[in-house]
């Protein structure tokens, strides 16, 4: 009925990322039937065999019109009350206006990797996806590995932290709590910090701490700082923290990357990545020590808010002496095996 005439086809005030780029899929969504067949099905035989549910083509145009009308009313409200609404209210209205747009829904469910994070509706869909699985997984891993009381007291995660190690060209992400070899962790990781709140351009601090360094004098463990970055700018369009970002501004690196080099027969080391928001301020006291690092004190002194975390584990393997050699570290200790 009203395909192509309503607010969802008008891109004068809306971003072009709110539409599907492939023409066949777009025509499949913006017509009663599927004019090019089911373009998302790969095999030709599947496409030939496929038939849409009975009655969908009769009722879908009506449904589209109803939802588009509702969306246009929301846009009108936004333009009328532009000055009276707060940023959160505007964000909420923008999300509601596009939440049921079939093209947006298609992109959010079937093209999640290429979503435009500057759009509130896509951020909402990304947040829902994160909250349905990855957030819970992260909290479970942090709690079961006791990273939470052992480093910072707790975490209220506000953003998704994606960890990758560029030791080879494979783009796999690290699952929280994964055991990684010393070969993988010998080079600094690359992080992606996906923010869901409409936070303005802000500065972030990243710390990687290891709470399992053996402290023989006191017969306990101490925390070592493996990597510290400050004043890293993150925005919706630019979420990556990697070597490239550090090259352009070397003073962002407070402490250079020290790879995890566990001692033989010592317990498996946990490496916890903490991502903090600096709340638009410079760090009050950026003095850090690698050994016996007090992360709680550091966070308190600089009034940092922890918004995201990640964790991996490193154990001794036969490549650890090589990594020590590469970094010019002294030879490692060999502990007596403890029978559990």
């Amino acid at each position: 009925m009203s395909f192509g005439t309503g607010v969802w086809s008008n891109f004068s005030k809306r971003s072009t990322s709110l539409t599907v780029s492939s023409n066949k899929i777009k025509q499949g969504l913006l017509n009663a039937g599927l004019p090019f067949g089911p373009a998302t099905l790969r095999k030709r035989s599947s496409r030939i065999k496929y038939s849409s549910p009975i009655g969908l083509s009769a009722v879908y145009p009506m449904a589209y019109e109803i939802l588009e009308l509702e969306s246009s009313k929301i846009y009108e409200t936004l333009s009328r009350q532009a000055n009276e609404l707060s940023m959160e209210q505007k964000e909420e209205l923008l999300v509601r206006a596009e939440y049921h747009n079939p093209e947006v829904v298609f992109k959010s469910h079937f093209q999640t990797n290429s979503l435009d994070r500057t759009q509130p509706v896509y951020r909402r869909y990304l947040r829902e996806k994160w909250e349905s699985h990855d957030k819970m997984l992260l909290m479970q891993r942090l709690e079961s590995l006791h990273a939470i009381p052992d480093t910072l007291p707790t975490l209220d995660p506000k953003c998704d932290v994606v960890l990758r190690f560029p030791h080879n060209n494979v783009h796999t992400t690290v699952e929280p709590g994964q055991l990684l070899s010393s070969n993988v962790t010998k080079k600094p990781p690359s992080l992606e910090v996906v923010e869901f709140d409409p936070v303005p351009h802000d500065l972030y601090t990243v710390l990687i701490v290891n709470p399992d360094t053996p402290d023989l004098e006191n017969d306990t463990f101490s925390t070592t700082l493996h990597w510290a970055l400050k004043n890293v700018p993150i925005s919706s369009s630019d979420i990556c923290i990697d070597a490239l970002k550090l090259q352009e501004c070397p003073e962002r690196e407070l402490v250079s990357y020290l790879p995890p080099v566990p001692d033989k027969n010592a317990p498996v080391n946990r490496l916890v990545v903490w991502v903090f928001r600096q709340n638009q301020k410079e760090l009050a006291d950026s003095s850090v020590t690698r050994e016996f690092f007090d992360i709680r004190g550091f966070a308190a002194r600089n009034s940092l808010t922890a918004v995201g975390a990640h964790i991996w584990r490193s154990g001794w393997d036969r490549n650890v002496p090589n990594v020590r050699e590469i970094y010019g570290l002294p030879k490692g200790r060999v502990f007596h095996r403890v029978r559990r």
Partner: protein
Amino acid sequence: MFKSYGSALPQSLSRGLVGATKQTPTPFIQFVRGKRTKKYDLSPAAQKLITQLSVLSASRKQPKMLKLCPEDIVKHNTVQEAYKLITRKRKKAENEKLKQQYESMKLACEDLAKVSPELFEAANKREISKRFSLELRVPTNYPPNVPWYYDYTPESPEDKK
């Protein structure tokens, strides 16, 4: 497995083992997967038991799972959302109407109580053994075109004679 020798007969929508028709002594045999074509000679008790077991299980009685392509999944969800939206609006409007009707009735009664307490009491007086008045009508979405006949006069006893 569907299996046919040569062209199918026009009436061959029947499944199972098709025997010879009156017109032509046909050599065509059609097999269809899942159809009972073999006759088992069972005692009535055994057959009854089998039927009972069959009733308890859902095997072969379920409709086929609908497999939708991603576009149709999105379209289906769009239709569901639109329906939810209009139902919500309709229910909200109905609730609002009922609320307004109740409020206006309440206001009218309060006004009556203030203006004329005797009439108010008379209006609220309980008539013995009366539960529903003859004039009471069940609220309906489609009231008649002429809702009330104002010019009614009761029959006089002389007219009856």
